[in-house]
Protein backbone atom coordinates (compact mmCIF):
# COMPACT_ATOMS: atom_id res chain seq x y z
CA UNK A 1 0.00 0.00 0.00
CA UNK A 2 2.88 2.37 0.82
CA UNK A 3 4.37 1.64 -2.61
CA UNK A 4 1.10 2.55 -4.32
CA UNK A 5 0.48 5.70 -2.28
CA UNK A 6 4.07 6.88 -2.74
CA UNK A 7 3.93 6.36 -6.49
CA UNK A 8 0.57 8.16 -6.65
CA UNK A 9 1.93 11.04 -4.55
CA UNK A 10 5.05 11.25 -6.71
CA UNK A 11 2.97 11.33 -9.90
CA UNK A 12 0.67 14.05 -8.52
CA UNK A 13 3.61 16.10 -7.25
CA UNK A 14 5.27 15.74 -10.66
CA UNK A 15 2.47 17.63 -12.44
CA UNK A 16 1.69 19.93 -9.52
CA UNK A 17 5.26 21.25 -9.37
CA UNK A 18 4.86 22.49 -12.94
CA UNK A 19 1.21 23.46 -12.46
CA UNK A 20 1.55 26.57 -14.57
CA UNK A 21 2.18 24.36 -17.57
CA UNK A 22 0.06 21.34 -16.63
CA UNK A 23 -3.03 22.98 -15.10
CA UNK A 24 -3.14 26.75 -15.74
CA UNK A 25 -2.20 26.57 -19.44
CA UNK A 26 -4.97 24.11 -20.45
CA UNK A 27 -7.50 26.24 -18.52
CA UNK A 28 -6.47 29.30 -20.54
CA UNK A 29 -6.73 27.29 -23.79
CA UNK A 30 -10.26 26.15 -22.94
CA UNK A 31 -11.20 29.71 -22.03
CA UNK A 32 -9.99 30.93 -25.42
CA UNK A 33 -12.08 28.26 -27.18
CA UNK A 34 -15.10 29.44 -25.21
CA UNK A 35 -14.53 33.10 -25.98
CA UNK A 36 -14.11 32.52 -29.71
CA UNK A 37 -16.82 29.91 -30.30
CA UNK A 38 -19.44 31.56 -28.10
CA UNK A 39 -18.75 34.96 -29.68
CA UNK A 40 -19.16 33.54 -33.21
CA UNK A 41 -21.97 31.05 -32.66
CA UNK A 42 -24.01 32.23 -29.66
CA UNK A 43 -26.60 33.99 -31.81
CA UNK A 44 -26.71 31.29 -34.53
CA UNK A 45 -26.75 27.94 -32.80
CA UNK A 46 -29.27 26.59 -30.34
CA UNK A 47 -28.87 22.93 -29.48
CA UNK A 48 -31.34 22.33 -26.61
CA UNK A 49 -34.40 24.37 -25.57
CA UNK A 50 -33.66 26.75 -22.68
CA UNK A 51 -29.92 26.18 -23.00
CA UNK A 52 -27.77 28.89 -24.57
CA UNK A 53 -24.93 27.82 -26.89
CA UNK A 54 -22.33 29.10 -24.41
CA UNK A 55 -23.89 27.06 -21.58
CA UNK A 56 -24.01 24.02 -23.93
CA UNK A 57 -20.34 24.49 -24.79
CA UNK A 58 -18.98 24.72 -21.22
CA UNK A 59 -19.49 21.07 -20.11
CA UNK A 60 -18.04 19.89 -23.43
CA UNK A 61 -14.92 22.02 -22.92
CA UNK A 62 -14.60 20.88 -19.31
CA UNK A 63 -14.79 17.22 -20.29
CA UNK A 64 -12.45 17.69 -23.26
CA UNK A 65 -9.90 19.24 -20.89
CA UNK A 66 -10.32 16.38 -18.40
CA UNK A 67 -9.72 13.82 -21.16
CA UNK A 68 -6.81 15.50 -22.91
CA UNK A 69 -4.97 16.22 -19.68
CA UNK A 70 -5.50 12.77 -18.24
CA UNK A 71 -3.92 11.36 -21.41
CA UNK A 72 -1.11 13.92 -21.33
CA UNK A 73 -0.24 13.12 -17.71
CA UNK A 74 0.29 9.39 -17.84
CA UNK A 75 1.77 9.37 -21.33
CA UNK A 76 4.28 12.17 -20.74
CA UNK A 77 5.33 10.82 -17.35
CA UNK A 78 6.07 7.38 -18.80
CA UNK A 79 7.82 8.51 -21.98
CA UNK A 80 9.96 11.01 -20.05
CA UNK A 81 11.08 8.46 -17.52
CA UNK A 82 11.67 5.89 -20.27
CA UNK A 83 13.75 8.26 -22.38
CA UNK A 84 15.78 9.54 -19.40
CA UNK A 85 16.10 6.06 -17.89
CA UNK A 86 14.63 7.08 -14.53
CA UNK A 87 11.84 4.54 -15.08
CA UNK A 88 14.09 2.01 -13.31
CA UNK A 89 13.37 3.73 -10.00
CA UNK A 90 9.80 2.44 -10.23
CA UNK A 91 10.68 -0.87 -11.91
CA UNK A 92 13.22 -2.02 -9.31
CA UNK A 93 10.98 -1.80 -6.22
CA UNK A 94 8.45 -4.49 -5.25
CA UNK A 95 5.44 -2.57 -6.58
CA UNK A 96 2.82 -4.89 -8.08
CA UNK A 97 1.73 -4.20 -11.64
CA UNK A 98 -1.82 -3.53 -10.40
CA UNK A 99 -0.59 -0.89 -7.95
CA UNK A 100 1.60 0.58 -10.69
CA UNK A 101 -1.43 0.86 -12.99
CA UNK A 102 -3.71 2.35 -10.34
CA UNK A 103 -1.17 4.97 -9.27
CA UNK A 104 -0.53 6.23 -12.81
CA UNK A 105 -4.21 6.22 -13.82
CA UNK A 106 -5.39 7.87 -10.63
CA UNK A 107 -2.75 10.58 -10.97
CA UNK A 108 -3.91 11.11 -14.57
CA UNK A 109 -7.53 11.38 -13.41
CA UNK A 110 -6.53 13.88 -10.71
CA UNK A 111 -4.67 16.02 -13.25
CA UNK A 112 -7.68 15.84 -15.59
CA UNK A 113 -10.06 16.78 -12.77
CA UNK A 114 -7.82 19.66 -11.61
CA UNK A 115 -7.90 21.13 -15.10
CA UNK A 116 -11.63 20.35 -15.47
CA UNK A 117 -12.50 22.14 -12.22
CA UNK A 118 -10.26 25.03 -13.29
CA UNK A 119 -12.05 25.32 -16.64
CA UNK A 120 -15.44 25.11 -14.91
CA UNK A 121 -14.56 27.86 -12.42
CA UNK A 122 -13.08 30.09 -15.12
CA UNK A 123 -16.07 29.72 -17.44
CA UNK A 124 -18.88 29.98 -14.89
CA UNK A 125 -18.93 33.74 -15.40
CA UNK A 126 -19.98 33.35 -19.02
CA UNK A 127 -23.28 31.49 -18.69
CA UNK A 128 -25.57 30.14 -15.95
CA UNK A 129 -25.07 26.40 -15.66
CA UNK A 130 -27.48 23.86 -14.17
CA UNK A 131 -26.20 20.88 -12.28
CA UNK A 132 -29.20 18.55 -12.45
CA UNK A 133 -27.54 15.15 -11.99
CA UNK A 134 -24.20 15.61 -10.17
CA UNK A 135 -23.61 11.86 -9.83
CA UNK A 136 -23.57 11.49 -13.62
CA UNK A 137 -21.06 14.35 -13.83
CA UNK A 138 -18.75 12.65 -11.33
CA UNK A 139 -19.16 9.20 -12.89
CA UNK A 140 -18.35 10.35 -16.43
CA UNK A 141 -15.48 12.58 -15.28
CA UNK A 142 -13.83 9.69 -13.41
CA UNK A 143 -14.48 7.07 -16.08
CA UNK A 144 -13.45 9.37 -18.94
CA UNK A 145 -10.29 10.40 -17.08
CA UNK A 146 -9.60 6.73 -16.31
CA UNK A 147 -9.99 5.74 -19.98
CA UNK A 148 -7.70 8.46 -21.28
CA UNK A 149 -5.28 7.88 -18.39
CA UNK A 150 -5.10 4.19 -19.41
CA UNK A 151 -4.73 5.14 -23.06
CA UNK A 152 -1.91 7.49 -22.04
CA UNK A 153 -0.19 4.62 -20.26
CA UNK A 154 -0.52 2.40 -23.33
CA UNK A 155 0.86 5.15 -25.57
CA UNK A 156 3.66 6.00 -23.11
CA UNK A 157 4.71 2.36 -22.80
CA UNK A 158 4.45 1.71 -26.55
CA UNK A 159 6.26 4.85 -27.76
CA UNK A 160 10.05 4.74 -27.88
CA UNK A 161 10.43 8.37 -28.88
CA UNK A 162 8.62 11.65 -28.21
CA UNK A 163 7.52 11.97 -31.85
CA UNK A 164 5.76 8.59 -31.72
CA UNK A 165 3.82 9.80 -28.71
CA UNK A 166 3.06 13.11 -30.44
CA UNK A 167 1.71 11.15 -33.43
CA UNK A 168 -0.54 9.11 -31.11
CA UNK A 169 -1.79 12.32 -29.53
CA UNK A 170 -2.24 14.33 -32.73
CA UNK A 171 -3.63 11.63 -35.02
CA UNK A 172 -5.81 9.70 -32.56
CA UNK A 173 -6.61 11.58 -29.37
CA UNK A 174 -7.09 15.09 -30.81
CA UNK A 175 -9.42 14.09 -33.69
CA UNK A 176 -11.46 11.84 -31.40
CA UNK A 177 -11.92 14.58 -28.80
CA UNK A 178 -12.61 17.38 -31.28
CA UNK A 179 -15.09 15.28 -33.28
CA UNK A 180 -17.02 14.07 -30.27
CA UNK A 181 -19.69 16.74 -29.98
CA UNK A 182 -17.81 19.17 -27.75
CA UNK A 183 -18.77 22.09 -29.99
CA UNK A 184 -22.04 20.79 -31.49
CA UNK A 185 -24.82 18.26 -31.07
CA UNK A 186 -24.41 15.28 -33.38
CA UNK A 187 -28.09 15.78 -34.39
CA UNK A 188 -26.87 18.75 -36.41
CA UNK A 189 -24.67 16.43 -38.50
CA UNK A 190 -25.70 14.63 -41.74
CA UNK A 191 -26.88 11.02 -41.07
CA UNK A 192 -23.61 9.47 -42.26
CA UNK A 193 -21.48 11.51 -39.84
CA UNK A 194 -24.00 10.89 -37.07
CA UNK A 195 -23.43 7.14 -37.58
CA UNK A 196 -19.65 7.67 -37.63
CA UNK A 197 -19.85 9.68 -34.38
CA UNK A 198 -21.55 6.75 -32.69
CA UNK A 199 -18.30 4.77 -33.13
CA UNK A 200 -16.37 7.40 -31.20
CA UNK A 201 -16.31 6.45 -27.50
CA UNK A 202 -15.43 10.01 -26.53
CA UNK A 203 -18.79 11.14 -27.89
CA UNK A 204 -20.49 9.09 -25.13
CA UNK A 205 -18.23 10.57 -22.45
CA UNK A 206 -19.07 14.13 -23.51
CA UNK A 207 -22.78 13.40 -24.00
CA UNK A 208 -23.14 11.63 -20.64
CA UNK A 209 -21.16 14.33 -18.84
CA UNK A 210 -23.35 17.03 -20.40
CA UNK A 211 -26.48 15.11 -19.34
CA UNK A 212 -25.37 15.62 -15.72
CA UNK A 213 -25.64 19.38 -16.20
CA UNK A 214 -28.79 19.76 -18.32
CA UNK A 215 -30.69 16.50 -17.89
CA UNK A 216 -30.83 16.24 -21.70
CA UNK A 217 -28.52 14.34 -24.04
CA UNK A 218 -28.21 13.07 -27.60
CA UNK A 219 -28.38 9.41 -26.47
CA UNK A 220 -29.54 7.77 -23.24
CA UNK A 221 -27.02 8.39 -20.42
CA UNK A 222 -27.35 4.75 -19.41
CA UNK A 223 -26.24 3.66 -22.83
CA UNK A 224 -23.32 6.11 -22.64
CA UNK A 225 -22.41 4.81 -19.19
CA UNK A 226 -22.42 1.20 -20.39
CA UNK A 227 -20.22 1.99 -23.41
CA UNK A 228 -17.80 4.09 -21.37
CA UNK A 229 -17.60 1.45 -18.62
CA UNK A 230 -16.90 -1.30 -21.16
CA UNK A 231 -14.19 0.85 -22.81
CA UNK A 232 -12.63 1.48 -19.39
CA UNK A 233 -12.67 -2.22 -18.55
CA UNK A 234 -11.10 -3.19 -21.90
CA UNK A 235 -8.36 -0.55 -21.79
CA UNK A 236 -7.59 -1.30 -18.14
CA UNK A 237 -7.27 -4.99 -18.97
CA UNK A 238 -5.00 -4.24 -21.93
CA UNK A 239 -2.78 -1.94 -19.84
CA UNK A 240 -2.59 -4.49 -17.03
CA UNK A 241 -1.57 -7.24 -19.48
CA UNK A 242 1.15 -4.97 -20.91
CA UNK A 243 2.44 -4.20 -17.42
CA UNK A 244 2.29 -7.82 -16.27
CA UNK A 245 4.31 -8.94 -19.29
CA UNK A 246 6.65 -5.98 -18.93
CA UNK A 247 5.98 -5.02 -22.57
CA UNK A 248 8.73 -2.53 -23.59
CA UNK A 249 9.55 -1.98 -19.93
CA UNK A 250 11.36 -5.19 -19.04
CA UNK A 251 13.43 -6.77 -21.83
Amino acid at each position, binding site marked *: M*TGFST*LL*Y*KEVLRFWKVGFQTVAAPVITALLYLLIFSHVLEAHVKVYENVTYTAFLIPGLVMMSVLQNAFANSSSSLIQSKVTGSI*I*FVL*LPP*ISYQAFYLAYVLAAVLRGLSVGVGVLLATLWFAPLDCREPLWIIAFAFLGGGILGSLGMIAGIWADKFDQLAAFQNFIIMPLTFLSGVFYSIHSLPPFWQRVSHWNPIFYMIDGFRYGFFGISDVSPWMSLCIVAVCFALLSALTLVMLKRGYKL*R*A
Partner: protein
Amino acid sequence: MTKRFGSVVALAGVDLDVEQGEFFGLLGPNGAGKTTLISALAGLVHLDSGQIEITGHDVVRDYRQARRQLGVVPQELVFDPFFSVRETLNFQCGYFGIGQSRERDAWIDEILENLDLTSKANANMRSLSGGMKRRVLVAQALVHRPPVIVLDEPTAGVDVELRQTLWQFIRRLNRDGHTVVLTTHYLEEAESLCSRIAMLKAGRVVALDTTASLLKRFSAHALRLRLAPGAELPPALSQRAEIKDSVCSIAFDHFAEIEPLLAELRNSGCGLNELDIGKPDLEEVFVRVMHERGETR
Protein backbone atom coordinates in the same frame (compact mmCIF):
# COMPACT_ATOMS: atom_id res chain seq x y z
CA MET B 1 20.96 -18.60 -17.25
CA THR B 2 20.63 -17.84 -20.91
CA LYS B 3 19.46 -14.69 -22.64
CA ARG B 4 19.47 -13.61 -26.26
CA PHE B 5 18.65 -10.21 -27.74
CA GLY B 6 17.81 -11.09 -31.34
CA SER B 7 20.95 -12.72 -32.74
CA VAL B 8 23.15 -11.47 -29.88
CA VAL B 9 23.79 -13.97 -27.09
CA ALA B 10 24.05 -11.94 -23.89
CA LEU B 11 24.17 -14.86 -21.46
CA ALA B 12 25.22 -18.26 -22.76
CA GLY B 13 24.73 -20.50 -19.74
CA VAL B 14 26.00 -18.60 -16.73
CA ASP B 15 25.85 -20.55 -13.47
CA LEU B 16 26.94 -18.69 -10.34
CA ASP B 17 26.51 -18.77 -6.59
CA VAL B 18 27.34 -15.73 -4.50
CA GLU B 19 27.62 -16.47 -0.81
CA GLN B 20 25.93 -14.35 1.82
CA GLY B 21 28.24 -11.62 3.09
CA GLU B 22 30.67 -11.89 0.16
CA PHE B 23 32.21 -8.98 -1.69
CA PHE B 24 31.92 -10.46 -5.17
CA GLY B 25 33.40 -9.03 -8.35
CA LEU B 26 31.91 -9.49 -11.78
CA LEU B 27 34.48 -8.54 -14.39
CA GLY B 28 34.55 -8.67 -18.13
CA PRO B 29 34.99 -6.53 -21.22
CA ASN B 30 32.14 -4.42 -22.60
CA GLY B 31 29.39 -6.65 -23.96
CA ALA B 32 30.42 -9.62 -21.80
CA GLY B 33 26.96 -9.85 -20.23
CA LYS B 34 27.58 -8.23 -16.84
CA THR B 35 24.79 -5.68 -17.06
CA THR B 36 22.37 -8.24 -18.54
CA LEU B 37 23.12 -10.51 -15.59
CA ILE B 38 22.46 -7.68 -13.13
CA SER B 39 19.30 -6.66 -15.00
CA ALA B 40 18.04 -10.26 -14.79
CA LEU B 41 18.81 -10.22 -11.07
CA ALA B 42 16.81 -7.01 -10.70
CA GLY B 43 13.87 -8.24 -12.79
CA LEU B 44 14.53 -5.76 -15.60
CA VAL B 45 15.32 -8.56 -18.06
CA HIS B 46 13.42 -11.82 -18.50
CA LEU B 47 15.71 -14.82 -18.96
CA ASP B 48 15.17 -17.20 -21.90
CA SER B 49 16.00 -20.09 -19.59
CA GLY B 50 17.28 -20.61 -16.09
CA GLN B 51 16.40 -19.02 -12.81
CA ILE B 52 17.79 -16.66 -10.21
CA GLU B 53 17.20 -16.65 -6.47
CA ILE B 54 18.09 -13.85 -4.09
CA THR B 55 18.35 -15.08 -0.50
CA GLY B 56 16.09 -17.97 -1.54
CA HIS B 57 13.47 -15.85 -3.33
CA ASP B 58 12.92 -16.50 -7.03
CA VAL B 59 13.16 -13.22 -8.95
CA VAL B 60 10.13 -14.11 -11.12
CA ARG B 61 7.78 -16.19 -8.98
CA ASP B 62 8.52 -14.38 -5.73
CA TYR B 63 9.53 -11.08 -7.29
CA ARG B 64 8.28 -8.81 -4.53
CA GLN B 65 10.34 -10.51 -1.82
CA ALA B 66 13.33 -10.87 -4.15
CA ARG B 67 13.30 -7.15 -4.98
CA ARG B 68 13.12 -6.19 -1.28
CA GLN B 69 16.43 -8.00 -0.81
CA LEU B 70 18.16 -6.09 -3.57
CA GLY B 71 19.60 -2.59 -3.94
CA VAL B 72 20.92 -1.79 -7.41
CA VAL B 73 23.15 1.12 -8.39
CA PRO B 74 22.66 1.36 -12.14
CA GLN B 75 25.45 2.05 -14.57
CA GLU B 76 23.70 4.94 -16.33
CA LEU B 77 23.59 8.32 -14.59
CA VAL B 78 19.79 8.56 -14.37
CA PHE B 79 17.70 10.91 -12.24
CA ASP B 80 14.23 12.40 -12.01
CA PRO B 81 14.60 16.14 -12.71
CA PHE B 82 11.41 17.16 -10.89
CA PHE B 83 12.58 16.43 -7.37
CA SER B 84 15.17 17.26 -4.72
CA VAL B 85 17.63 14.73 -3.29
CA ARG B 86 15.59 14.21 -0.13
CA GLU B 87 12.32 13.85 -2.05
CA THR B 88 13.99 11.30 -4.32
CA LEU B 89 15.15 9.25 -1.33
CA ASN B 90 11.80 9.54 0.45
CA PHE B 91 10.03 8.25 -2.67
CA GLN B 92 12.44 5.35 -2.96
CA CYS B 93 11.72 4.42 0.69
CA GLY B 94 7.99 4.53 0.01
CA TYR B 95 8.29 2.36 -3.10
CA PHE B 96 9.89 -0.30 -0.91
CA GLY B 97 7.04 -0.07 1.59
CA ILE B 98 8.88 1.97 4.22
CA GLY B 99 6.49 4.61 5.56
CA GLN B 100 7.39 7.97 7.04
CA SER B 101 9.04 7.55 10.45
CA ARG B 102 11.84 8.98 12.56
CA GLU B 103 13.89 5.85 11.95
CA ARG B 104 13.54 6.30 8.20
CA ASP B 105 14.57 9.95 8.38
CA ALA B 106 17.54 9.06 10.59
CA TRP B 107 18.73 6.38 8.13
CA ILE B 108 18.37 8.76 5.19
CA ASP B 109 20.38 11.38 7.12
CA GLU B 110 23.04 8.78 7.84
CA ILE B 111 23.29 7.78 4.18
CA LEU B 112 23.47 11.44 3.13
CA GLU B 113 26.24 12.08 5.63
CA ASN B 114 28.23 9.01 4.66
CA LEU B 115 28.04 9.93 1.00
CA ASP B 116 28.84 13.58 1.74
CA LEU B 117 25.46 14.71 0.44
CA THR B 118 24.05 16.45 3.51
CA SER B 119 24.57 19.95 2.11
CA LYS B 120 22.76 18.95 -1.09
CA ALA B 121 19.74 17.29 0.57
CA ASN B 122 17.31 19.95 -0.56
CA ALA B 123 18.93 20.72 -3.90
CA ASN B 124 17.10 19.79 -7.09
CA MET B 125 18.60 16.79 -8.87
CA ARG B 126 19.17 18.85 -12.02
CA SER B 127 21.51 21.21 -10.18
CA LEU B 128 23.92 18.46 -9.07
CA SER B 129 27.23 17.61 -10.72
CA GLY B 130 27.75 14.16 -12.27
CA GLY B 131 29.61 12.88 -9.23
CA MET B 132 26.88 14.11 -6.88
CA LYS B 133 24.19 12.45 -9.00
CA ARG B 134 26.20 9.22 -8.79
CA ARG B 135 26.20 9.51 -5.00
CA VAL B 136 22.41 9.93 -5.01
CA LEU B 137 22.10 6.75 -7.10
CA VAL B 138 24.09 4.91 -4.45
CA ALA B 139 21.92 6.42 -1.72
CA GLN B 140 18.74 5.37 -3.56
CA ALA B 141 19.95 1.78 -3.69
CA LEU B 142 20.58 1.73 0.06
CA VAL B 143 17.46 3.40 1.49
CA HIS B 144 15.64 0.11 2.14
CA ARG B 145 18.72 -1.47 3.79
CA PRO B 146 18.94 -4.30 1.24
CA PRO B 147 20.89 -7.42 2.30
CA VAL B 148 22.29 -7.61 -1.25
CA ILE B 149 23.83 -4.54 -2.89
CA VAL B 150 24.68 -4.57 -6.59
CA LEU B 151 26.95 -1.86 -7.93
CA ASP B 152 27.18 -1.69 -11.72
CA GLU B 153 30.29 0.35 -12.48
CA PRO B 154 29.60 2.81 -9.66
CA THR B 155 32.87 4.72 -10.04
CA ALA B 156 32.82 5.18 -13.81
CA GLY B 157 34.01 8.72 -14.48
CA VAL B 158 33.96 9.93 -10.88
CA ASP B 159 36.65 11.66 -8.88
CA VAL B 160 39.03 10.12 -6.36
CA GLU B 161 37.26 11.70 -3.41
CA LEU B 162 33.95 10.03 -4.21
CA ARG B 163 35.63 6.69 -4.82
CA GLN B 164 37.23 6.78 -1.40
CA THR B 165 34.04 7.93 0.34
CA LEU B 166 31.99 5.33 -1.51
CA TRP B 167 34.29 2.37 -0.87
CA GLN B 168 34.67 3.30 2.78
CA PHE B 169 30.88 3.21 3.15
CA ILE B 170 30.37 0.06 1.08
CA ARG B 171 33.14 -1.74 2.99
CA ARG B 172 31.39 -0.85 6.21
CA LEU B 173 28.09 -2.20 4.91
CA ASN B 174 29.86 -5.39 3.82
CA ARG B 175 31.40 -5.75 7.28
CA ASP B 176 27.90 -5.34 8.72
CA GLY B 177 26.78 -8.38 6.72
CA HIS B 178 25.55 -6.97 3.40
CA THR B 179 26.46 -9.00 0.35
CA VAL B 180 28.04 -6.82 -2.33
CA VAL B 181 28.26 -7.60 -6.04
CA LEU B 182 30.46 -5.20 -7.98
CA THR B 183 31.16 -4.74 -11.66
CA THR B 184 33.93 -2.37 -12.59
CA HIS B 185 36.55 -1.72 -15.22
CA TYR B 186 38.91 -0.44 -12.52
CA LEU B 187 40.67 -3.71 -11.79
CA GLU B 188 42.75 -2.36 -8.93
CA GLU B 189 39.44 -1.57 -7.15
CA ALA B 190 38.18 -5.10 -7.72
CA GLU B 191 41.50 -6.52 -6.53
CA SER B 192 41.48 -4.59 -3.27
CA LEU B 193 37.75 -4.99 -2.52
CA CYS B 194 36.52 -8.35 -3.81
CA SER B 195 37.13 -11.60 -2.02
CA ARG B 196 35.96 -13.62 -5.03
CA ILE B 197 35.76 -12.79 -8.70
CA ALA B 198 33.95 -14.12 -11.76
CA MET B 199 35.22 -13.14 -15.19
CA LEU B 200 32.73 -13.10 -18.01
CA LYS B 201 33.39 -13.21 -21.71
CA ALA B 202 30.73 -13.38 -24.44
CA GLY B 203 28.06 -14.40 -21.93
CA ARG B 204 30.09 -17.17 -20.26
CA VAL B 205 31.99 -17.42 -17.00
CA VAL B 206 35.61 -17.95 -18.06
CA ALA B 207 37.15 -17.74 -14.58
CA LEU B 208 35.70 -18.03 -11.11
CA ASP B 209 37.82 -18.14 -7.99
CA THR B 210 38.96 -16.21 -4.96
CA THR B 211 40.95 -13.11 -5.83
CA ALA B 212 44.02 -14.56 -4.14
CA SER B 213 43.84 -17.81 -6.13
CA LEU B 214 43.33 -15.98 -9.41
CA LEU B 215 46.36 -13.82 -8.72
CA LYS B 216 48.40 -16.88 -7.81
CA ARG B 217 47.31 -18.85 -10.85
CA PHE B 218 47.56 -16.22 -13.50
CA SER B 219 50.02 -13.68 -12.19
CA ALA B 220 53.27 -13.65 -10.22
CA HIS B 221 55.93 -11.35 -8.83
CA ALA B 222 58.32 -10.27 -11.52
CA LEU B 223 61.76 -8.79 -11.66
CA ARG B 224 61.50 -6.00 -14.21
CA LEU B 225 64.64 -4.84 -15.95
CA ARG B 226 65.45 -2.13 -18.43
CA LEU B 227 68.78 -3.08 -20.02
CA ALA B 228 71.62 -0.67 -20.77
CA PRO B 229 72.14 0.03 -24.50
CA GLY B 230 73.82 -2.95 -26.17
CA ALA B 231 73.37 -5.24 -23.13
CA GLU B 232 71.90 -8.74 -23.51
CA LEU B 233 70.36 -11.09 -20.98
CA PRO B 234 72.28 -14.32 -20.32
CA PRO B 235 70.68 -17.24 -22.26
CA ALA B 236 69.22 -18.92 -19.12
CA LEU B 237 67.34 -15.75 -18.16
CA SER B 238 66.34 -14.72 -21.65
CA GLN B 239 64.34 -17.98 -21.97
CA ARG B 240 62.31 -17.05 -18.87
CA ALA B 241 61.86 -13.37 -19.69
CA GLU B 242 58.93 -11.70 -21.31
CA ILE B 243 59.87 -8.57 -23.19
CA LYS B 244 57.36 -5.77 -23.63
CA ASP B 245 58.08 -2.10 -24.41
CA SER B 246 61.82 -2.84 -23.92
CA VAL B 247 61.16 -3.98 -20.33
CA CYS B 248 62.21 -7.57 -19.54
CA SER B 249 60.00 -9.27 -16.91
CA ILE B 250 61.23 -12.40 -15.19
CA ALA B 251 58.51 -14.03 -13.09
CA PHE B 252 59.30 -15.67 -9.77
CA ASP B 253 57.29 -17.30 -7.00
CA HIS B 254 59.48 -16.74 -3.93
CA PHE B 255 61.58 -13.77 -2.90
CA ALA B 256 64.48 -16.18 -2.23
CA GLU B 257 64.80 -16.53 -6.01
CA ILE B 258 65.81 -12.88 -6.40
CA GLU B 259 69.37 -13.22 -5.19
CA PRO B 260 70.37 -16.02 -7.62
CA LEU B 261 68.73 -14.05 -10.46
CA LEU B 262 70.72 -10.94 -9.64
CA ALA B 263 73.89 -13.04 -9.26
CA GLU B 264 73.36 -14.47 -12.73
CA LEU B 265 72.93 -10.97 -14.16
CA ARG B 266 76.06 -9.74 -12.39
CA ASN B 267 78.14 -12.73 -13.54
CA SER B 268 77.07 -12.25 -17.14
CA GLY B 269 78.11 -8.59 -17.03
CA CYS B 270 74.70 -7.49 -18.31
CA GLY B 271 74.31 -3.71 -17.82
CA LEU B 272 71.07 -2.36 -16.34
CA ASN B 273 69.46 1.06 -16.49
CA GLU B 274 66.47 0.29 -14.25
CA LEU B 275 65.37 -2.49 -11.95
CA ASP B 276 62.21 -2.97 -9.90
CA ILE B 277 59.94 -5.69 -8.55
CA GLY B 278 56.37 -5.92 -9.84
CA LYS B 279 53.55 -7.38 -7.75
CA PRO B 280 50.98 -9.82 -9.14
CA ASP B 281 48.03 -7.77 -10.39
CA LEU B 282 44.52 -8.41 -11.51
CA GLU B 283 45.02 -6.60 -14.78
CA GLU B 284 47.52 -9.25 -15.84
CA VAL B 285 45.13 -11.98 -14.68
CA PHE B 286 42.31 -10.36 -16.63
CA VAL B 287 44.31 -10.01 -19.83
CA ARG B 288 45.55 -13.60 -19.62
CA VAL B 289 42.15 -15.06 -18.81
CA MET B 290 40.44 -13.13 -21.58
CA HIS B 291 43.14 -14.16 -24.04
CA GLU B 292 43.49 -17.82 -23.07
CA ARG B 293 39.92 -18.74 -22.14
CA GLY B 294 38.45 -16.79 -24.99
CA GLU B 295 40.46 -18.82 -27.50
CA THR B 296 39.75 -22.23 -26.01
CA ARG B 297 35.99 -21.78 -26.06
